[in-house]
């Protein structure tokens, strides 16, 4: 059992640059598609069509909305702390994009005589990297709520911070089960370890706990009281225009990251079942397809479950999810060590 990364080669700087730009470009091209997909699918779940007026089938809707947000007046409350008020959304989006680098889209490939890993980075600390940036993204919320200089934004930020901290524990514990089973922290190593059986079967409880905690971590329904559209007490209450969109994009990027993590750690990454071994260039599409399925599940749950009350959120997180995660970890540890 080794805790170092599986990388035994060096990529030239330009390969890393191209990889970074490619991942960034593809994900940010996918973001608007996810937004329109979510709204269309949510509409179908509720017996309606969803947006269908802008462009063919309403597919231009995100474009129209981005234009709408971009031309809005950049206002801020007089009580806000100017610098932090502007920095907070940047922190949010920065941490979301940084976590994106960890998702592996495929194994190491030979492209133009170069060894190129189809992932942003394969750090030796693996998922801990995501948790580190998840911890910093908490500053995006907290600073945004505090620097707005509004009681409601601050309340929303406090609630958001408490929620993130509570559910990060369960999410982390659910992951430890996978890490123990795989015996490595490298995400590519974890995918390789799933060659026999995807971890959502032996780690089914861990999978459920991880998904539930992920809903809370990404502020998705039914744990979306951080933003609570219908109650209007969120940390970005005082944000509008592009700064608001930055938060929105950070949230959707976090969704992609979490679905990527679920794909990597539980759903076998780029592996296919029944012993199918497609050529290497198929791998990224397999990963994207699996992430798409996880995102669909996110939307499905959003259409199904009503928002929790705050005390329910806390009691569920600490009294149900955390004991379950701990139990799952203990059982896994005993079984593996034995």
């Amino acid at each position, binding site marked *: 059992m080794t805790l170092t990364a599986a990388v035994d080669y060096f990529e030239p700087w330009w390969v890393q640059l191209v990889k970074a730009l490619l991942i960034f470009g593809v994900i940010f091209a996918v973001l608007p598609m996810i937004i329109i997909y979510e709204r269309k699918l949510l509409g179908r*779940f509720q*017996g309606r*069509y969803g947006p269908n007026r802008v462009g063919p089938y309403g597919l231009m809707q995100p474009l129209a909305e981005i234009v709408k947000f971009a031309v809005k007046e950049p206002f801020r409350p007089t009580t806000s702390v100017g610098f932090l008020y502007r920095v907070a959304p940047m922190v949010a989006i920065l941490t979301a994009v940084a976590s994106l680098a960890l998702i592996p889209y495929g194994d190491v490939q030979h492209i133009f005589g170069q060894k190129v890993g189809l992932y942003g980075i394969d750090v030796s600390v693996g998922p801990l990297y995501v948790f580190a940036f998840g911890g910093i993204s908490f500053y995006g919320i907290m600073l945004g709520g505090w620097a707005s200089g509004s009681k409601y934004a601050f309340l929303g930020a406090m609630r958001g911070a408490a929620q993130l901290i509570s559910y990060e524990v369960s999410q982390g514990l659910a992951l430890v089960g996978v890490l123990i089973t795989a015996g490595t922290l490298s995400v590519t190593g974890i995918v390789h370890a799933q060659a026999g059986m995807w971890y959502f079967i032996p780690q089914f409880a861990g999978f459920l706990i991880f998904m539930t905690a992920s809903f809370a971590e990404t502020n998705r329904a039914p744990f979306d009281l951080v933003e609570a559209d219908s109650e209007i007490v969120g940390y970005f209450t005082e944000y509008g225009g592009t700064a608001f969109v930055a938060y929105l994009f950070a949230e959707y990027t976090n969704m992609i990251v979490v679905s990527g993590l679920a794909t990597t750690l539980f759903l076998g990454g780029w592996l296919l079942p029944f012993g199918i071994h497609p050529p290497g260039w198929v791998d990224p599409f397999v990963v994207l397809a699996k992430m798409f399925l996880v995102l669909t599940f996110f939307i499905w749950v959003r259409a*199904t479950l009503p928002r929790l009350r705050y005390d329910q959120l806390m009691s*569920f997180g600490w009294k149900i999810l955390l*004991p379950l995660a701990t139990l799952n970890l203990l059982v896994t540890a005993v079984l593996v060590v034995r």
Partner: protein
Amino acid sequence: MTPYDPGSDVIEVIRAPGGGAARGAYRVFGETLRGLKTTFGRIVEGPTTIQYPEEKTPVYPRFRGRHRLHRFDDSGLEKCVGCSLCAAACPADCIRVVAAENTPENRVSAGERYAAVYEINLSRCIFCGYCEVACPFDAITMGHDYEMSDYTRSDLIFTKEMLLAEAIERTPLRREGE
């Protein structure tokens, strides 16, 4: 002195459902599956939306839409005799009738008099249909048209010519048993 009796002032606060972790876990994961099944049923059903400007909600035959004035089919004379009973019956006071005498050279209606001016202010009309009930000659009836929005208030005052004109039937009628 008796201690304070709270009586009906005490309200039982609804707490989160009990049963501990096992029940809670079942509620979260088991009942959620049931909910997921329910919402997926909506996708199978398909949308129930009526895409309004393209497809319109059919109205019932007795639907009270925009008014229409009528002529006799055979002679082409106006049915309205300018009696102002509709204006008297109108609770919103939105009908204005100015009557004039029919002459042999200028015969407009079948009676002694006719409506020289007949205006309905549709921005005031409440579509109660009392005018229709009050009319002794069935000269005014409620049509089926409900698309009457306009850009200025003065455009909403419908004159006699507009009310008499053959209405473009823009509203589908509900079929029998629909």
